[in-house]
């Protein structure tokens, strides 16, 4: 008797904590944050974590299956690619490439787009008209194809990919930031700032910009997943990040010819892209619901 009570109590405690755990999982984006933290840590400390160099070839061990296969080796946990480079090490270094894309392309797109958005919303008139039309037209250009042309003419390079992606990122910011500024502009405190003698620049920087920060953060998080997918597509097509550098999209492309008997070469980089983009999208949704529910339509 005593033992059953003990068990049921123990299970009762267990059930409580499980429910609490579920509650926390629902309320906070725990899983995406864990995935993204792993991703960021892997990106920053890549040379320290990775067991091998991402460029080191070992033709004798080419296309070694992952460690849990009979033919696999503990030396290469996720197997090796067609020239015997360690897939895990290339994945870890690939995180660095994706992070650079996120930071530089998104950063510059965000800066330019938000600035133009604030200017368009605050100044109005012809500058608004021109900027909005420009954003409309820009939005409808097929960037993947423009990137193809650029890659042929200018030659493939890391900088080119960053530039093309930055060029494609800014227009979403203009549109949404402007809409937000339009409503902030009519607030009393902005008028009061004018009465107090604040210049236009000061009003924009001190009174408008803090009001649109939430919008900018939300848009950036929602957009950055798409940016990573775009970079992966470019690299997959062979016009993105040039060859030996370990970009995830490129790794998938390199594994294409060996798909049938070495599935791990394209599988893991694709999985990494999927996990990171999904976490970013999830985090974006969560941030939007928290910070700026009006953007729901996005």
């Amino acid at each position: 008797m005593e033992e059953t009570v003990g068990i049921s109590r123990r299970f009762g405690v267990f059930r409580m904590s499980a429910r609490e755990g579920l509650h926390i999982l629902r309320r906070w984006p725990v899983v995406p944050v864990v995935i993204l933290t792993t991703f960021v840590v892997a990106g920053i400390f890549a040379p320290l974590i990775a067991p091998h160099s991402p460029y080191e070839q070992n033709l004798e061990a080419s296309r070694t299956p992952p460690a849990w296969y009979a033919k696999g080796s503990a030396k290469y946990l996720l197997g090796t690619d067609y020239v015997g480079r360690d897939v895990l090490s290339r994945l870890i270094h690939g995180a660095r490439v994706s992070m650079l894309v996120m930071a530089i392309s998104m950063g510059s797109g965000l800066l330019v787009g938000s600035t133009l958005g604030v200017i368009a919303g605050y100044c109005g008139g012809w500058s608004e008209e021109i900027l909005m039309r420009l954003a409309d037209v820009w939005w409808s250009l097929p960037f993947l194809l423009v990137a193809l042309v650029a890659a042929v003419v200018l030659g493939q390079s890391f900088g080119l990919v960053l530039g093309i992606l930055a060029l494609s990122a800014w227009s979403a910011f203009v549109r949404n930031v402007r809409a937000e500024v339009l409503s902030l502009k009519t607030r009393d405190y902005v008028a009061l700032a004018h009465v107090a003698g604040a210049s236009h620049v000061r009003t924009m920087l001190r009174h408008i910009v803090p009001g649109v920060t939430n919008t900018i953060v939300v848009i950036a998080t929602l957009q950055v997943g798409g940016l990573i997918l775009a970079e992966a597509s470019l690299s997959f097509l062979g016009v993105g990040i040039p060859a030996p550098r370990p970009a995830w999209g490129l790794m998938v492309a390199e594994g294409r010819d060996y798909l049938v008997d070495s599935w791990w070469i394209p599988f893991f980089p694709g999985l990494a892209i999927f996990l990171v983009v999904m976490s970013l999208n999830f985090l974006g949704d969560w941030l939007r619901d928290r910070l700026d529910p009006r953007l729901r339509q996005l």
Partner: protein
Amino acid sequence: MQGFIVRRLFTAMVAALAATMVVFGISRLAGDPLLLYAKPGGYGKSPEQTAALKNKLGLDRPLVVQYVIWLRNLGRGDFGRSLLDDRQVAQVLRERTSATLKLALGAWVFATVVGVPLGVLSAVKRATVPDYLGRGFALFGQALPAFWIGMMAILVFAVKLHLLPSATLPSDAPLLNQIKYLILPAIAAGWGPAAGLTRLTRSAMLETLDSEFIKFARCKGVSSWKVVWKHAFRNALIPPLTMSALMLAGFLNGVVVVEVVFAWPGIGRLALDAVWNNDFPLLTGTVLGFAGLILIVTFLADVAYAYIDPRIRYR
């Protein structure tokens, strides 16, 4: 309505012009543009041919004049000749368009057939298992790269299970047999849009189901099926439809990648072949053709939605 069409047409024209400017601008960024048309010692152009080409492109004239000449040629449907086999680019493009349209249509059908009902179901059965499935699909689908889905689908369904063909579309096969070849590529290309559509339909349905007239219809005793499909669905349809114009452009981009994975004989594959062969006239022709296709499709979609929802016309 007419005002809207004119305004929208104007935007489309400006966008088309911008696309030509971007392509032209890029092509003139790299030193001598003649090198893009004839590599020295490359494709065996004689000095006379090179001179004739130089004259035709007007390379000795100012940049603006060059652009106008190039644009005039484009307007006449003269996209130049492919460097590899010296055929008219416009001709090659015309041959490849139908395969791309088939794939795009297949993917579009898949996205609609899966996305819309799943979105409605997810909204109606809010916070139950179907809703979690729908939301999970929306979240997963938008994060999966199309090329990766395509490759994994080939691995599972074509290589391991031998259910469907992985390879390219035989153009001489009867239409019914072609469908078999279309399934995997269409799903790979349509997966992302289907997820987006699920998400949009769900949020639009939730909003509509929450409104007063739905509650009134329920109070009146209208059957739940009728409330969902007749009262709510028709009103909720507008945001997904409007957004899908924008989605469509991104979706045609995805078609390029899928065509490469499945060796599909369409425009996207053509563009990439042109990249690998350094065939610059073919590449610019393809890119402009594709851009034109995207602009036309989005324009038609926008007009159709403005016709459905009068509020859009006055934005």
